[in-house]
Every structure is written in C-alpha cells, then in structure tokens.
C-alpha cells in the first residue's frame, strides 16, 4: 500500500529515528569510552566524543596488559574460547537436528512420534532449569574446563529439530521417490538432496544459534574455573568485580565492543541467506 501524506512520512521517520537513537546511543557511549585513557574515564562529565586512545586500548585489551592487578586471560584468548564454543554449539546443533529431523520425517520406526514428542518436550528444559544435574554429569565426566564441557550440554535442540522437520515436510514426496528410482540410498538422499534444499534454512539457523552460543553466560560461568577457559561474555562481568581500584572503563568497554563484533560480522555476512531462509517457501 502506498500512501502519500507528508505528515505521516515525517512522523514515521521520527519514530524510526528515535528508535535507532535509543538503540545506537549506548553503543556510541561504549565506543567513546573505549577510546579514552583510564584517567579521563574517571572524570565527570563523561566524554561524548571519541578520544585518541582507541588503538592503544585495543592493543592492551587484546594482548592482556590491560586490566592491572588481575589474573584475567588476555581478551584474544577469551574471544577464541567464545568462538570455539559458539561454533561448536551452532554446528553441533545443526548436525544433530538435521539428522534427527531426517529420521523422524523419512523413517518409520517404532515409537517414532514418541521420540518426536520427547525431543519436543526438551523445549521446556533449557540449561537454566536443568543446570544442577547437567553440571553434575559434566563434572563426573571430567569435562570441566574443556571445550566439550562448554558446548556439548547445549547442543541438543528441539527448536532446530522442529524447524528442519517442517522444512523436510515441505519437500514433495516425489523428490524422495525420484531419488529412490535413481538409486540413491537414504544417506545419499540426505546429502545430495535434502541438505542442498535446506541450505538457506541451515544458514538462517546458523546465525541464530551462533549468537545464542556466543551469548552464553551462566553455563560457562559455572563450569570454567581456569582463567584460560573463560569466555568473553562472562569476563566482562568479572572485570567489573575484580579490580580493587575503580573499574577501568576504557578496557571494559573495549572488551564489550570486541564481544559484540563476531555476532555482527556473522549477521552482516549471512544476512542474505538468513532472510531467504526465513521467508523462502519455493521448493
């Protein structure tokens, strides 16, 4: 629908600009804070324009002489930890839910619907609810302070399984039949036909799951005690508490900026596929 009313145009733009400012302003403040030296950040009023210490701060933050008087790991290592965790969770979730959705949609086995509902019920059991028993299991398996411990308990995903099930259900039966006549076995069909056909959905899900993994806070906090295994998201909080003197805002804000970066990159680079995956219905 196209309406041509200048007043409405101005109003909608105003509302939109206001919304953008509300979201962007804190990020701007973060950026400004990350570009000053520590002394300037303790003086009132706080600066609203960027300073000239941005790259010094970035160097200090990334390579670890930043926050004085603490035993915190350098931020590059924390970013690496976060990256490994987020990637393992995202890829692991996608692989497992693709396989389980494949089994549920294309195979007739006893208690098929039972299994489907079992998976579905786990939607009601996010990490926070089952955190104690899960911690116990991970601890007993000796997986504390390991990448496996960080990612494995978060890998099973009812949402993704359900989503892939819906995707597979939209693929016409003839596709399977025609593959059978062509002589493709189940795994061949899965690999040659199903995966390429759900490519955009996989990409969309990857974006969502990567951000989900990257933003994990509670679980890494619980199972990592070794500073070399901390993730960047949990470290921001620790930085606030750990310093005995006043918090070094320039370093903390730089860390926050760096923590924001990978999810943004993923979204930017996968935007096209992401939108396609959520909207495309043509199979």
């Amino acid at each position: 629908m196209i309406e041509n009313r200048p007043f409405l145009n101005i109003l909608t733009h105003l509302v939109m600009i206001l919304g953008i400012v509300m979201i962007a302003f804190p990020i701007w403040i973060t950026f400004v804070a990350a570009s000053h030296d520590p002394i300037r950040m303790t003086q009132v009023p706080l600066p609203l324009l960027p300073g000239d210490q941005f790259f010094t701060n970035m160097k200090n933050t990334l390579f670890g002489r930043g926050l004085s008087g603490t035993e915190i790991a350098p931020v590059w290592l924390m970013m690496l930890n976060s990256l490994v965790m987020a990637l393992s969770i995202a890829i692991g979730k996608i692989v497992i839910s693709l396989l389980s959705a494949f089994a549920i949609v294309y195979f007739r086995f006893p208690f098929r619907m039972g299994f489907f509902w079992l998976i579905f019920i786990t939607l009601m059991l996010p990490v926070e609810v089952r955190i104690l028993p899960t911690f116990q299991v991970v601890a007993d398996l000796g997986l504390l302070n390991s990448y496996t411990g960080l990612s494995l308990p978060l890998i099973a995903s009812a949402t993704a399984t359900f989503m892939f099930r819906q995707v597979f259900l939209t693929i016409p039966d003839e596709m399977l039949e025609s593959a059978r006549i062509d002589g493709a076995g189940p795994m061949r069909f899965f690999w040659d036909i199903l995966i390429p056909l759900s490519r955009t959905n996989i990409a969309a899900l990857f974006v969502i799951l990567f951000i989900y993994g990257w933003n994990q806070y509670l679980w890494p906090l619980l199972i990592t005690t070794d500073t070399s295994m901390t993730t960047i998201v949990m470290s921001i909080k620790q930085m606030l508490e750990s310093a005995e003197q006043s918090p070094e805002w320039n370093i903390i804000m730089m860390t926050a900026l760096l923590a924001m970066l990978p999810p943004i990159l993923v979204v930017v680079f996968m935007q096209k596929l992401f939108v396609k995956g959520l909207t495309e219905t043509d199979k």
Partner: protein
Amino acid sequence: MAELILKDLHKSYGSTEVLHGVSGDIADGEFVVIVGPSGCGKSTLLRMIAGLEGITSGEVRIGGRVVNDLEPAERDIAMVFQNYALYPHMSVRQNMAYGLKIRGLPKAEIERRVNEAADILEIRQYLDRKPRQLSGGQRQRVAMGRAIVREPEVFLFDEPLSNLDAKLRVQMRLEIRKLQERLGVTSVYVTHDQVEAMTLGDRLMVLNAGHVEQFGTPLELYERPASVFVAGFIGSPAMNFLPAEGIEGGLLRLESGATLPGARGAGPVTLGMRPEHLIADSEGPIRIRVSVLEQLGSNTLVHGTLEGTEREMVASLPGIHQIPEGEVLGFLIRSDELHQFDAATGKRL
C-alpha cells in the same frame, strides 16, 4: 527390452482393499495406457510396478524376473512424475546424470548418454540451466530425458501431461508416442484422460474401483466395450444409455414404446448408442426432442430427451444444422453399432 507381467496384484491399506486382483501381460516394446477415473487405483498400480508401493499379494515380473522385493533402482525402470520431480538445486545436466552417477558409470559414458538424450529431446541448449528457469514443457522434457538416459527396460509415466496447457499437451502427447516408437521401450502410462489414452496406447487397461474392466486396443474398446463403464468412459461425447426390454421376435422395446431389431436376449437390457452412430432419418424409431445445439463446426451436437421420457440423449450430426428447440428428430442406428449390456451386471451381451 523386456516384457512386463502383472499377475493377480492386490493392494490393501489396512482393511481397505484398493486393487482387487489386477492381471495383464504387456509385451516387449508395447505401449500400454492405464486409464480410469480418479481413485480407481491406477496410480497405485503404477507405483507398485515402480516399487514405490509394497505389493500386498500377486507378482510383478519384468523381463522374466520377479521384482516384488527389489528396490525401485534395481528394477531397471524409469519413471516420469506428474510434477516432474526434478531436483531444483541441480542443473538439467546434473538432473539427468544423477542416477547414472550413483550407478558409478564412467564420466565419459554419462556425458555421452546425457548429450544423446538431450539431442533426442532438443534440450541441449538448456543443459546448464536450473529447472526453475524452464517452462512446463521444457521441464517435462527434462523429466523424460532423465528417464531415457537410464536406458531402462520399462518406462513408467504417471500422468505426465496433466500440468501442461491444452495445446502443449497435444504436442507432447505426439512426441511421447514418437519417442516411445523410436526407442522401442516397454511403457506403462497412467492417465485419466481418455483422449490421451486412445491416442497413445497400443492397448488400454481400463480400471474401475480396483478392477480391470477391459484390456484391449483402443478400437476394441471403442467398438466392443466390455461393460457399461468402459462404454461410457471411452468416446467423446459419451455414449447414450437407454433402458430397454427384449421382447418377442428379437425386438428391443424402448421406454418411448418404439422398437429396434436385434435383441440378444430377453428381459431388461441397457442399450448403448454412440452419438456419432445415430443417423438422422425422419422415419427413424429413436425420436429425440431437441433442447440445445452445440455447434462445433465440423459437426453439430444435438442435445435433447427421448420423446415421451426424461432420458437425456446426444446425437452428433455431421456439418452445420439449425434446428429449433422443441422439434422432434428421428434417428436410426445400425444394429452392429447398437451395444447391449445386461441391465443388472452391466456386462456386454
């Protein structure tokens, strides 16, 4: 090249039986069309031959080999689906080559077969396109190409033309026929369109509610339909059916009281008269009160009712006629073109 033998095929879903013993021998290189109304089990039968549906009981033989328990890929068949079922993410070339690739044929051989099939179907210039960039007719060709490259013993077609527009359908129909004659591969073709069935098939298998009503050449079906069902299904416009009674002297008495010669039995019968076999004759015993005319140019369809009754009838007159509504016309029919069926069972007398 192989013959295809169906022996007493049954299919049930739970307690519902959809095929009640279908048998038929299809000779090597023959083109058989399975035709029937929707829900008669024709697609199920084809899918049983393909191996996509299990066989409840009975036997399917391809080239002397019982294939009941073989996977579709092992049956040496190729199938063309109604919605083409092309892999949307593969190019035309990849679509055609996929089955061969799985069978592990050498690259050069695959290339040769794909190019050959593409030449036959004149789709060479589309080989590197994706299916969604093709029109319906072109997709249909690709689907056939995918079947041809496999060099199968049997082609199976599941209503392949029903997604095309009328003009293209007629054109593709001819092409399928020519292609089949050229390749000489045994083919089974499912359709609900009787014109398609008549023009394509060497022989037609008419299915009704899971039974074979008749299995014969198009002209046999037209000239000697085995039952009321076949008689009504084959031919356009459809045959007229009138109840009548065999009376003394070998006469048939219509509801209107008129009599026709040539009764094959006594008692109630159903008479079948094709509209094109009714010959206008002012003295004719079959008198029709005209209600509507359909001008087709080459002939005129006269719709009306048998005089004195409410029986709808159609007659086809060659050429163009102008007949006022309500006028009564007389018609004759040759006794060898008058079909007689048992009124109770519907079987031919």
